[in-house]
Each structure stands twice: as structure tokens, then as C-alpha cells.
């Protein structure tokens, strides 16, 4: 059992794998942020549709979240404070998963507000599973990367 755990740890902490995971997640978050920054009113309306935040906080959340995604994405690719960025990403993904799950459970279908750059998509089990996969991709970064301020790509 210990051997298997060690083997998994060795694979997941591989610098090449971590590099690819960082780039994938970084690009995903940058892409996700672009349209939200360009069309803040639209994103605000989508966030309001989730109904997980009090209405008063919706505009602030809609303004801040895309910038968090953008900065985290860039810093993750550049390997700056990688673990901190991965932690933030996990938090964002968890918030979206909770929001989507609640809405799907209640049968409320609306725009996902995920990757508007490639066209609009509604929340569904697919978007939920996709976010779960993103969490799985982010976890090794959080667990096995370093949290240094070093400007390097690999």
C-alpha cells in the first residue's frame, strides 16, 4: 500500500507533468476570464441567475472574479506562487460546482458563465463533471509544486 502511494506521489510530483498541468489550467482560467472582463454586465446577469449570492454582492463578484481568474492563470503559467494560485482556483471551482449542483438539483437551467469565448453553454452534468476534472488537475499542482516567487516557465 505504501509502495503504491509512493509511486502515485512520484508520478504526480513529476516536474514535466506539473508543468503541463500548470499550462493547461493557466490557459483554461485565462480563456475563462477574457469574455467576463469584456462583457461584465452579461457575467453579472449570469451570476445573478445562480442565486447563490445575495443580490447586493453580485456586481462586486462579477467585477472581481474574472480578474482573479486572469491573474491566477498568468501566474500559474509563470510559476509564481503556484500553490497559492492553485488554492484560489480550487476555491473558484468549488464555488461553481456548488452553484451548478444547487441549480441542477432544483431544475433551474441557465447559462454556465464558464467559457463564453467559445460560445454560450447552459449548466449541465457535463459542465459539472468538467469542473470536477479541473479540480483533479489542480490538486497535484497544489500538493506538489513550490510556492516561490520565481519567474520561470519550467
Amino acid at each position, binding site marked *: 500500500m505504501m509502495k503504491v502511494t509512493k509511486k502515485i506521489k512520484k508520478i504526480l510530483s513529476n516536474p514535466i507533468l506539473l508543468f503541463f498541468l500548470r499550462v493547461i489550467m493557466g490557459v483554461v482560467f485565462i480563456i475563462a476570464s477574457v469574455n467576463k472582463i469584456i462583457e461584465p454586465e452579461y457575467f453579472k446577469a449570469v451570476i*445573478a441567475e445562480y442565486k447563490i449570492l445575495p443580490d447586493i454582492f453580485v*456586481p462586486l463578484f462579477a*467585477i472581481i472574479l474574472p480578474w*482573479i481568474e486572469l491573474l491566477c492563470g498568468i501566474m500559474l503559467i509563470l510559476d509564481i506562487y503556484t500553490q497559492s*494560485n492553485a*488554492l484560489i482556483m480550487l476555491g473558484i471551482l468549488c464555488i461553481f460546482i456548488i452553484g451548478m449542483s444547487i441549480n441542477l438539483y432544483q431544475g433551474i437551467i441557465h447559462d454556465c458563465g464558464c467559457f463564453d469565448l467559445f460560445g454560450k453553454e447552459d449548466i449541465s452534468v457535463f459542465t459539472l463533471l468538467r469542473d470536477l476534472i479541473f479540480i483533479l488537475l489542480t490538486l497535484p499542482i497544489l500538493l506538489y509544486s513550490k510556492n516561490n516567487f520565481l519567474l520561470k516557465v519550467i
Partner: protein
Amino acid sequence: MRKKKFIKIILISINIVLVSSICGIIFNIINPLGIEFKLKSTYQVPKVITIYKKIKNTPAQDTKVSQDTKVSQDTKVSQDTKVSQDTKVSQDTKVSPDTEILHNTTTITETQPIIEYIDLKEAKRLFDEGKAIFLDARPEYRYIEKHIKGALSLSASRFTLQYENVKDKIKKDDILVVYCSGIGCHLSDIVANNLKEKGFLNLKVFANGWESWEEAGFPVEGIKVK
């Protein structure tokens, strides 16, 4: 040691969030398309419930009169306020024998306004005449993308909240045309029924909805309109 490292990660995360937040707020301030802040909640518990009265065995449209004043277009009569367009009769006005005041001769029963369904042609006519206010019952993000020119957003999913923003722009006797995506979409019915409960008199549901309006090439606006 591990605990210390974890706290450090969290503290740096908080700093990143703060820096991002400042960037976002500054960008929003300088962005002409930025979001407007509203510091107070718009939700209020609705207070007024209006009861309408209907005259049974109603004759022609132009013979309806209310006890005090207000009458809606077809068979509805309210107890208190105004009279709609062409049917106003004040107490001191002389009424011809064939249009005598109906409350003397007919039974009055309680009812609510009827929602009328209209097609594209009728919707366009009302739009051109500028008599009607169009209400978009689709989710607000769809409205932001594209909507009928001059329409207001009053989504079925967030009716209570949005009604508070819209209520100052619409009057109880305005002609309200509610629409959603198209035939098969029932959001407009939900909104129309909610408005009916709030006492709006002239409710029309544009059944063909947004799709037919857009297909016909009629005036639209929104962030996706070039």
C-alpha cells in the same frame, strides 16, 4: 513546519485576491461598459393587492362604466381610480339611455384582468404606435445580449427582484407586451400572470416571441447587436 507553510500559502492567496480585486475595480471604473454599483438591496415585500370587478352579461365595449371612475379595455371595472382610453364617464356626465350605468342593472363579480395573446403583426403594430411597453421575460443575460428595442428586462426567474427596478417605469394601465424566446417558451406566461396578480390591466403575451421578431428583422438592441 507544514502548518506554517500552509498558512503562508493562504496568506499569499489572500494577497493575490486583493490585488486582483483592486485591478478589477480600477478597470471597472475606467471601463465605459463597467457595472454600476447599487449599495442597497432592491427587494421589498409587495404590499398592495388590487381587486377588480367584472360586469356580468356585458354588452358592447363602449358601454362599460365604473362606479367611481376607472374601467379597463374589455370587461374589467375597478372600484377606485381612472377610466381607460375611450370609456371615461364622470359622475356628472350625461349618459344616453342605451348606455346607462351598468352597476344598476348588472351583477358584479370579482375577477382579474385577462391576458391577451398577440401575434407578430399585432406586436409590431403596437411597437410602431409606441403605445406599448415591451417586457423581456427571458433571463437577464439573454436580454443583455439582444432584445426588442426599448424593451425592459423582467425575467421570470428573478421576477421579484427585477420588478422592483421596473415598477417605476410602468403604470397599471399601460399596455404591457410580455415576450420570451418563442412558441413553447412559457416564461412570458409566468411573468404575465405575476403582473396580473400585481394589478396590471392591459397585459398581452407576444406568443411568437423573440425568435420571430429577430427573424423578421425588426428593431433590436443589445451588446451583441452590431
